[in-house]
């Protein structure tokens, strides 16, 4: 098991965002974490990353509890939702800096070619468009070789060509036995890449299983419609 979450609770002020989440993420699969806005997807991901500190419950990453630890993040590549970098540095310097900070081996040249970022390497980040920033973000995430990859809305701002590259990249990582967590609102993308669906609703896991199981339970033939009608199935996973 790559990640094991037990009875996770998180409250922001009066707002109870996670209400006892139990979740096991197995090695070598692609998981899509879905749910309506405000259902706690990002909070869940940030709890795994240690950015949000839970009120109650335990999270184990690679068999180790993450509380008060930070070294385990060396095993995680994380793509944040909004890519906003220091404006005064160049793309090349940012890549170099993250490599330096993580202190691990990275191979970025192939990724830079893949996303056609060569002309931007010497430009300052403040001059880049949203889509280009997202490509830089993707390069930063995938250049390290870690067993766990977490992608928060990876498709934002990407053009079709880059989107295809991203999907190929995700599949390639999967064949190397990596575990990948994705959140996205683009159902077509989820349907193409994900093995397992985790559906969060109001801070609880409402459904967990593969796409076939989801289609069967909701009695739908189309994945997007199945997600839209998922709350009609009375049973919890």
């Amino acid at each position, binding site marked *: 098991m790559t990640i094991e979450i037990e009875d996770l609770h998180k409250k*922001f002020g009066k707002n109870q965002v996670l209400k006892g989440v139990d979740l096991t993420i197995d090695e070598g699969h692609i998981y899509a974490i879905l749910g309506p806005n405000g259902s706690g997807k990002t909070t869940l991901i*940030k709890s795994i*990353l*240690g*950015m*949000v*500190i839970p009120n109650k419950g335990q999270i184990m990453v690679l068999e180790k509890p993450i509380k008060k630890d*930070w*070294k*385990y*993040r*060396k095993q*995680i590549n*994380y793509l*944040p939702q*909004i*890519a*906003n*970098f*220091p404006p*005064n*540095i160049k793309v090349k310097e940012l890549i170099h*800096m*993250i490599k*330096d*900070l*993580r*202190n691990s081996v990275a191979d970025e040249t192939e990724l830079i070619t893949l996303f056609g970022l060569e002309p931007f390497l010497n430009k300052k980040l403040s001059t880049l468009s949203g889509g280009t920033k997202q490509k830089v973000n993707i390069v930063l995430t995938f250049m390290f070789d870690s067993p766990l990859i977490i992608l928060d809305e990876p498709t934002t701002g990407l053009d079709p060509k880059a989107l295809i590259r991203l999907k190929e990249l995700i599949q390639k990582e999967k064949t190397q036995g990596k575990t990948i967590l994705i959140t996205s609102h683009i159902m077509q993308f989820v349907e193409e890449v994900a093995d397992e669906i985790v559906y969060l609703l109001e801070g609880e896991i409402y459904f967990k299983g593969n796409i076939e199981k989801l289609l069967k339970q909701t009695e739908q033939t189309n994945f997007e419609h199945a997600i839209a009608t998922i709350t009609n199935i009375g049973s919890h996973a």
Partner: protein
Amino acid sequence: MLKILKYSFYDLIRSRWSYVYFLFYLALGFVLLFLNNDVSKAVITLMNVIIVLIPLIGTIFGVMYYYNSREFTELLLAQPINRRSIFMGQYFGVAGSLTMSLVLGLGIPFVLYGLLRSNAIFDFSLLLVTGAFLTFIFVGLSFVIAISNENKIKGFGYAVLLWLFLAVVYDGLFLMSLIVFEEYPLDTFSLVATALNPIDLSRILILLKLDISALLGYTGAIFKKFFGTDLGFLVSMAILLLWTVLPILGLGHKAKRKDF
């Protein structure tokens, strides 16, 4: 932490505002020296300017930097780096680059003018040291305020209020209490009250070193008796140091518990 410090520092010294700040001090130093033609007088005028300005710039810069680098901080938080190191690195980066602007901006004109040969070198170094202390103190306080307030407007508001309180309102209250309680012995009270405010403390420290405390009358004599001695000097430095360390500890404490 050193890596974060390095990158924050580089990021800042390349930003326009660091140059503006540096050039401001450079211009101030040149203008004062060549209008005054007297290093000691220039030091006094400088003191009056920087004792108010440094805390203001430190506060505004600290809050602005914290809020502007929020998303980048989040990126760093997801990396295998200790939380404390991230915030400490950023803090020392901001405070360090501001201090550098101050020291270089004022230092260059003074060195060119021939400070090294004059006997005002100690006064001038004291000015720079207290300036550095004030920078670290107010950047630290503003970081604590910023990390405690998600809302930028609120954070800015509190930070500016804090500056206003320590730079202006505090003196007013102090004076008022001196007038209201004038029939009581206030020596100890005024000593303590001065020591509690880093801005006042810096001002008194510099004034006393400049040997113009005679102008301050009876109170000045008491101050001189305390702050003028080596012990008083050490105690004041210790208090400034405490003022610097407390916000840093507060920042570490807040950083450990915060959700991003």
